[in-house]
């Protein structure tokens, strides 16, 4: 019987992708492991391998097709001895149902809470599961391997429709909702610009009816409205012709969605500290001089990554993910490094950075950054992580705050190292100072805890030799 090849879910958060290129054509013989297609997601271009052998009977999706939903059949493989006649009356959609049908992963079943809040951001548990499973970097294009991933990804709920914290509702609607115990967040507004009015709450049943239907918003994610949330469409404010409209690519959509979710749902707070950099710069110079022969050149950022990892090991309560009903205490410090690339940014991860020396971190970051720029990162390279570093020092930025990259719980925004006047023991002098600002998820990390982490980081940076301990 012909075997359908389904659109694979390349990451836990993937909902659809672009079939960039077919590497096989109808009639080609394929063996398990052969690369058959390239698929572009919001973050990367991935190769799809066949896991079954046979002959490509039919390509169902043209190369270049955008927005192919996961689990949609994209091709049909004929098994040995079958010919095209077997395709007659074969419905790939139908055939795909019994075997690779999406089912919830075990993690989700036991862990996730069913309320909206928990569903709206990808649960760390899910993220982790995905990353681990795909640890070998290979992605299966067909069942049954894809089914687990696909199942999970299929359940990732769409972006919330409300773009901001503020819910627009008439005073009367608010009062009726309060009286009846209705949550306005779950109600669609029918008034001007989506304002919730009396009619919207009058017939709503607490917890149920008139709440946003589960299926409807899924389709809505494709609409611009989902990405501007409840804010008015900016096109209302500008005359046509005074601007050029550039459609969002997958990466921009992903950034918009994930970071909006993060800022809306994660209670961010910020801690800022100054670090003296002179000793670190001296050590770095010395290290680079000695490693020159071996082509080793470590950057200040490499030190920062290692210092972050070690600080997290010292304050393991900060090395956590908030999972709704539990905190996940990570055993290693997986440090994400924000890399600006053409048209967006991505945060590849230096895994277990606490176990890696400066030279190795340096080499890994270089490799990750290059592959990021070529959009060749695998989901396992950027999904998960426990902490991120975002450095804008090279642009002369003195101080800034960053948005936490879920499922992580903290991100450090690093400013430029610059000579500044400092007072030491009552006299004025100068020192190279770098200001860093830590954004923490208050649900997981309380203020004093975050402060301790920052303190540990500062000690390591100011006395870099301790990073050897």
């Amino acid at each position: 019987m012909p075997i359908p090849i389904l659109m694979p879910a390349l990451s836990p958060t993937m909902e659809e992708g672009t079939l960039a290129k077919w590497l096989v054509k109808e009639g080609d013989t394929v063996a398990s492991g052969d690369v058959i297609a390239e698929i572009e997601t919001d973050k990367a271009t991935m190769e799809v391998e066949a896991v079954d052998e046979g002959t490509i009977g039919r390509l169902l999706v043209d190369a270049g097709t955008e927005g192919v939903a996961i689990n949609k059949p994209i091709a049909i493989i004929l098994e040995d001895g079958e010919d095209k006649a077997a395709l007659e009356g074969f419905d790939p959609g139908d055939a795909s149902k019994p075997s690779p049908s999406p089912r919830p992963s075990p993690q989700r079943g036991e862990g996730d809470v069913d309320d909206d809040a928990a569903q709206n951001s990808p649960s760390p548990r899910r993220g982790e599961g995905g990353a681990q499973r795909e640890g070998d970097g290979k992605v299966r294009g067909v069942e049954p391997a894809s089914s687990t991933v696909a199942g999970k990804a299929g359940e990732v709920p769409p972006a919330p429709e409300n773009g901001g914290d503020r819910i627009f509702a008439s005073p009367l609607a608010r009062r009726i909702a309060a009286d009846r115990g209705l949550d306005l967040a779950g109600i669609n507004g029918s008034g001007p610009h989506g304002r919730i009015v009396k009619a919207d709450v009058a017939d709503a049943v607490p917890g149920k009816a008139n709440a946003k239907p589960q299926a409807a918003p899924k389709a809505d994610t494709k609409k611009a409205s989902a990405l501007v949330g409840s804010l008015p469409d900016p096109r209302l404010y500008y005359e046509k012709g005074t601007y050029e409209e550039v459609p969002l690519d997958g990466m921009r959509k992903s950034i918009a969605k994930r970071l909006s979710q993060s800022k809306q749902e994660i209670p961010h707070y910020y801690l800022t500290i100054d670090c003296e950099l002179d000793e670190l710069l001296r050590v770095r110079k010395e290290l680079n001089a000695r490693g020159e022969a071996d082509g080793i050149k470590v950057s200040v950022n490499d030190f920062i990554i290692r210092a972050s990892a070690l600080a997290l090991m010292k304050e393991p309560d900060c090395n956590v993910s908030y999972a709704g009903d539990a905190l996940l205490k990570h055993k290693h410090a997986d440090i994400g490094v924000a890399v600006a690339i053409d048209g967006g940014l991505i945060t590849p991860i230096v895994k277990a950075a606490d176990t890696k020396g400066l030279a190795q971190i340096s080499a890994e970051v270089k490799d990750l950054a290059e592959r990021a720029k070529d959009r060749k990162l695998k989901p396992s390279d950027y999904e998960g992580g426990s902490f991120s570093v975002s450095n804008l020092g090279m642009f002369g930025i003195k101080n800034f705050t960053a948005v936490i990259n879920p499922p992580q719980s903290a991100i450090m925004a690093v400013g430029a190292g610059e000579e500044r006047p400092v007072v030491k023991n009552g006299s004025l002098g100068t020192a190279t100072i770098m200001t860093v600002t830590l954004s923490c998820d208050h649900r997981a990390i309380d203020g004093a805890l975050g402060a301790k982490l920052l303190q540990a980081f500062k000690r390591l940076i100011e006395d870099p030799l301790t990073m050897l301990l």
Partner: protein
Amino acid sequence: MATSYDLVVVGTGPGGYVAAIRASQLGMKTAVVERSELGGICLNWGCIPTKALLRTSEIYDHLQHLDDFGLSASNISFDIEKVVKRSRGVAGQLSKGVTFLMKKNKIDVIKGTAKLAGKGKLSIEADGKTQDVTAKHILLATGARARALPGIEPDGEVIWTYREAMVPKTLPKKLLVIGSGAIGIEFASFYNTMGADVTVVEVMDRILPVEDEDVSAFALKAFKKQGMKIITGAKVAKVDVANGEAKATIEVAGKSSTETFDKVILAVGITGNVENIGLEEAGVKVDRGHVVVDGFGRTGVDGIYAIGVACVEKIAGVKDAHPLDTSNIPGCTYCRPQVASVGMTEAKAKEAGHDVRTGTFPFHGNGKAIALGEPDGFIKTVFDKKTGELLGAHMIGPEVTELIQGYAVARQLETTEAELMQTVFPHPTLSEAMHESVLDAYGRAIHI
């Protein structure tokens, strides 16, 4: 002139011409058809010219009470011809304004009488010639006319409709007004103030029957004080015209009596102009003289609508178009004192099952009203006890037609009593009475 349009509006009253302008703003190629003057009845023979007449009677009334203000004048009189001339001038000016607006918005004006002529087609007849235009969408805004009563046919001489009542050659000495709705009461108020002996006959048990009962009762007292004769629960069975006089047979509680008047104004409501436009052939539903539409003015027949900006926006595909909530349309009557209201009366609210809270504040507790020398009247507000929704507001008194919009905005925004109470109303203004009325509904009125 083109013969093919995105939208053709039939009728150029404020419903039609405003919709046409909005359509043009939204980029639709638009035309209007008018069989008479641009601006329709409202501008030419209704709302506007009567306001001009009532302004005259208002000033005339002030002149009768100059002494109260420390002023004096002698030989106060009027020239009815000049009064009418001013009213016509005002109407003419506004009609010209509409002509200008049509030009400015590049809307073609087609003179003639339109008739639906198949899907997307109108045939327009003028001076015996017929021209056809095609339109993707046809918006009916044909307005209304005075309703007639069996046995009482307006003749334009002795028995008037609003039309003749607006252009009197002489002031009638003894006038019968049949009907005490907004139109009847406004004419009654005008002629009574100008010195006519006015009798109003109303079939219902109270005047201004659509208003709150408290308002009707207060208006009745005020009008009687001004010398008007008002008979409620009464029916004018017939009017015999002979020798330029009208002999009216009035029935009250089964008893019949006759009285002679030199003029009669028939003001028993209006009926929609829905005849001879091919509605039946097109399949458009008409109920009691009105085209049946939904909140977006859709008749249910593809491409045919009946007035409204919301309707035009829906046709043009405006994303945030919202249907008209008719319960938020304020009503105004420009008698003396003025009457204005929005939303439900207390009785209607109770009938609808609301547990209500009402507040009332009299203008004699309002500094500005006393300073103006017009302390008669009150403002009544009706709230839902449970939700604090402003269900309705009912006003009688000075300039209340200008005040009612405040409550209309409040209703549109769905404010509760809390926001209204928190709002700062300027001092000293008549609008403070609006605030006080809300406060009173919650036992917090200050100046009472």
